[in-house]
């Protein structure tokens, strides 16, 4: 595989993004007991690059604002809106609002899409490494590949704690290597325990580009494993969760 693989993605014109706009929640899907996905229709929608995020702003009647950033889960081919997948953090301010208050038809204020470092532009081969809800921007990449280049070599190594933590469970296929770190489902014959050298090797992606997303500790481990597996540090992109609550 060539190092300077030309991008096979159709060019996306990146207009200046970022005016606040009021979107409408058109669909809510329960992914796991603490994760929901929200499809938001946008009046000023523009195509995003897989991996980009939107900012969400909540406003109370006194004008108090709470802002957070959430990765986009949907392919940019899903025109007219975005899907944000939100993990509920118990002591948070924005995620509990989405989980406990927002219903279909509600309006939410958002702006985006933002930043172009943790983005996939069609390079190959690709190894995605996600921990917990770190899988969200990686799912955007998987979905976009499925829609555009289903044969492009892309694999996902996905680490979760428990069986009911698997987000997008019904969409994970042969490209995914799943591991359970605490408790596998009954009868599970696949991987258990934290991501390690063998799991990365089993993904079989060499001389590729890596995307690692999750908690800081997870990303630290994941990016070191990719470097040990021969990935060029300049081709390992990481996204670490700050506390997005």
């Amino acid at each position, binding site marked *: 595989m060539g190092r300077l693989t030309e991008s096979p993605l159709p060019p996306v014109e990146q207009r*200046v*993004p*970022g005016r*606040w706009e*009021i979107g409408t929640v058109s669909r809510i899907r329960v992914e796991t007991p603490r994760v929901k996905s929200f499809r938001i229709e946008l009046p000023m929608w523009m195509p995003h690059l897989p991996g980009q995020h939107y*900012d969400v*702003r*909540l*406003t*109370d*009647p*006194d004008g*108090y*604002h*709470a*802002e*957070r*950033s959430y990765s986009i889960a949907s392919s940019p081919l899903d025109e007219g809106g975005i899907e944000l997948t939100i993990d509920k953090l118990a002591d*948070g*301010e924005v995620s*509990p*609002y989405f989980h406990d*208050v927002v219903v279909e038809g*509600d*309006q*939410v*204020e958002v702006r985006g899409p*933002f*930043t*172009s*470092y*943790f983005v996939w532009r069609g390079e190959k081969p690709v190894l995605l490494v996600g921990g917990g809800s770190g899988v969200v921007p990686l799912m955007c990449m998987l979905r976009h590949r499925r829609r555009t280049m289903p044969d492009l070599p892309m694999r996902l190594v996905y680490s979760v704690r428990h069986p009911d933590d698997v987000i997008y469970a019904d969409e994970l296929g042969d490209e995914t290597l799943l591991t359970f770190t605490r408790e596998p489902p009954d009868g599970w014959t696949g991987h258990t325990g934290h991501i390690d050298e063998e799991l990365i090797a089993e993904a079989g992606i060499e001389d590729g580009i890596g995307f690692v997303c999750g908690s*800081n500790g997870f990303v*630290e481990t994941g*990016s*070191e494993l990719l*470097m040990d597996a021969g990935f060029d*540090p*300049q081709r*390992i*992109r*990481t996204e*670490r*969760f*700050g*506390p*997005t609550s």
Partner: protein
Amino acid sequence: MNGFVSRGFKRRRQTPEELADRLPPGQYLEPGWPVLTAGPTPDVPTDEWSFRIDGMVGVTKEWSWDEFHQLPFETITKDIHCVTKWSKLDATFGGVSLDVLLDQVEPLDAYATFYSYGGYTTNLPIEEISDGKAWVVTEYDGEALPREHGGPARMLVPHLYFWKSAKWVRGMTVMDHDEPGFWEMNGYNNHGDPWKEERYWGD
């Protein structure tokens, strides 16, 4: 601003008033210190570390770890603001003011690009890093600066969003023009004033 109210949204974080005044718009108070880094964490032993100022300067200078620690050291307590929305108040660092370093090199032009081990860059006009606005720091809370937070040495430019405070810093180049750095090319604002909420391009 536009009169929009989020249906049923109730504020959950009550920030004490005297602290609330120190939070720029859209920021929340974070008691910890989250780690945010683009790419793997560089590992730079102090005996290999140096800090260099080059480019449009009267004299190019480079300080080794030991030479750097001969310079006047300050304790700096500042509020820091990350573009990802958290702010940390009264963070205490130890390091050397950039004024001390710039005095020794005589910058001849108005812009600088900071560069780091690992390849990160960020741009700052000289006026944003002089007169007590910027430091090269090697200590946090009286201890060696942890590697995940940029140790052995990072920039501290607390009046701007924290991506301007380059971790694992190894030097700066003085230039006659402004050249966007890593995040500035990837969507974050060229200036980054948290009080004006200059987060992204176009803000």
